[in-house]
């Protein structure tokens, strides 16, 4: 074998930048869009399809759209009737919440953002106090929204729109994670009562669609409770949605627990840590980190499942959209309505997905250099 002539003596080779034609925009284009004959053809066909579809879509949605108006007749026939969204905006966001009390919804949302930042963002100043606030937030939020104790009460049947989706989604997410962790740990327990209760609960919940549980919540539950007790409908829905999501969450976390090497628990035990300590410091942090994709997946599913409340008479944005479409002033505008609802959901769900990636990167101490 012939040795290629070395231009540097061993041990003196400097670190050089990569060759020019392997970096930069032209390189990216060549590598990703035009790397082979097939790829080039597919790229050109895609560009052509976009050329056909995109300009007319943008035209319809932004350029020819009517932004202001009071009835259908004000809208240009070729453009999106975004005026409709504007007219009905408050309905979409607040549902039937009394107009003069909407400041409470706004305040509750702002405080939700603050509590959310306290939990999700670890560089927030005064984190310890912010976390205490976040712990108290569910009660503050519930008080602001439904009233009582000094604030004028608002019936929960008036909740609707985005506000309803956020209430159901956030409550479900916040409730199902701790409950899911307890169920997953309980399923692994050595005590038969706890173990079989957890298995039974998880399998029963996973065996029925959410919609049937919502029906049970709205119609049948009163048969099981002592006569005369009325249990707020929204409260029943929140409980059902949380229980539903926690069963799925438990299985996701169980997967994460199983993925951990057995040696982690052994090392924790050999150091003298007891069960709660081993779970809190060693097992759960790692299991939850592994399960982040599954957990956020469950959250996103749960969030969108909140639209099912339409079957029991609560109106989320989709429900309001459908009701609005039937309004005689604004006939035939289903595209705009569903597009609006879709954009709302997309922003929320994509936000959750991005946060999940951020969290995974932050926790990836295995590859930190």
């Amino acid at each position, binding site marked *: 074998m012939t040795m290629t002539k070395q231009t540097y003596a061993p041990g003196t080779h400097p670190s050089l930048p990569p060759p020019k034609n392997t970096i930069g925009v032209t390189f990216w284009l060549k590598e990703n869009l035009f790397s082979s004959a097939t790829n080039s053809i597919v790229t050109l066909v895609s560009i052509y399809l976009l050329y056909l579809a995109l300009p007319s879509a943008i035209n319809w949605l932004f350029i020819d759209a009517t932004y202001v108006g009071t009835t259908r007749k004000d809208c240009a026939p070729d453009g999106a009737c975004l005026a409709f969204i504007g007219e009905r905006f408050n309905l979409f966001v607040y549902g039937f919440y009394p107009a003069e009390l909407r400041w409470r919804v706004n305040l509750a949302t702002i405080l939700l953002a603050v509590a959310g930042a306290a939990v999700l963002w670890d560089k927030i100043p005064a984190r310890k106090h912010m976390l205490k606030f976040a712990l108290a937030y569910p009660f503050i939020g519930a008080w602001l929204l439904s009233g009582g104790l000094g604030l004028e009460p608002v019936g929960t049947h008036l909740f609707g729109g985005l506000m309803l989706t956020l209430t159901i989604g956030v409550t479900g997410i916040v409730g199902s994670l701790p409950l899911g962790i307890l169920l997953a740990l309980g399923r692994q327990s050595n005590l038969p009562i706890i173990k079989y209760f957890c298995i039974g609960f998880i399998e029963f919940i996973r065996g029925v669609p959410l919609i049937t549980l919502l029906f049970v919540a709205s119609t049948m539950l009163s048969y099981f409770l002592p006569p005369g007790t009325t249990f707020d409908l929204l409260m029943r829905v929140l409980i059902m949605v949380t229980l539903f999501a926690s069963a799925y969450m438990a299985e996701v976390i169980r997967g994460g627990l199983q993925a951990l090497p057995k040696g982690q628990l052994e090392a924790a035990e050999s*150091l*003298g*840590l*007891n069960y709660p300590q081993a779970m809190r410091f060693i097992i759960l942090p*790692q299991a939850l*980190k592994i399960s982040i994709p599954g957990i956020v997946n469950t959250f996103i599913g749960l969030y969108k499942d909140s639209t099912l409340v339409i079957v029991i008479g609560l109106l989320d944005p989709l429900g309001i959209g459908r009701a609005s479409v039937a309004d005689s002033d604004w006939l035939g505008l289903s595209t705009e309505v569903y597009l609006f609802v879709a954009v709302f959901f997309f922003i929320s769900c994509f936000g959750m997905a991005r946060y999940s990636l951020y969290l995974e990167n932050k926790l990836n*101490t295995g590859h930190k250099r």
Partner: protein
Amino acid sequence: MSETQSNSTADLCIEIRNMDKWYGDFHVLKNINLEVRKGEKIVICGPSGSGKSTMIRCINRLEEHQKGDIIVDGTELTNDLKNIDAVRREVGMVFQHFNLFPHLTVLENCTLAPIWVRKVPKAEAEATAMEFLERVKIPEQANKYPGQLSGGQQQRVAIARSLCMRPNIMLFDEPTSALDPEMIKEVLDTMVSLAEEGITMLCVTHEMGFAKKVADRVIFMDEGEIIESNSPHEFFDNPQHDRTKLFLSQILDH
């Protein structure tokens, strides 16, 4: 170092009497009898599957025995959680695959148990941890994560982590089997210096050079039984049983 077997139980730190263990139907440990005195260093060797790791894992209750008694530092090992926790506080263990906690820094790995089990204040726990990290010669790695260290460094951190609990007994389960030759030396040197301090050590290993240097007794196990137990000098130069002779003839001298 040969000493007459003292009959007094006063300085016995581990007593295993007529211990048997089954995995389902498989009889993995058969009638184990072992007495370890304070400060004694025991090397356990034998072919794979002979039950060496299982036996030492019974000592800190990572495995349960079905028959017989195990008494560690005066506490009998039963299903009583209090006893188990008490024993585990005094017995440190180093594993073949290190088992460091990857989501914690090296320093946090070492201070976690002292803070939460022995209720030592954080500053003191950190000072102790730095002291032991210096003993194993890697104090500069204190704020790194285990994933950033080499195998030999990780194992030394594992040793330091166990030592931070100031145990009376250290168990080593094939500590160098997952390392390459250069790293084996690093870890063995650490273990030799540890041995010189008087801590009681039980070490399952294939490193016969280490055994000759440090051990007070070498134990040979095969198929769940203790076949032979002798001082290193006697063990290597004058093996009594055929099985021991066969084993010794097959292993390479390190």
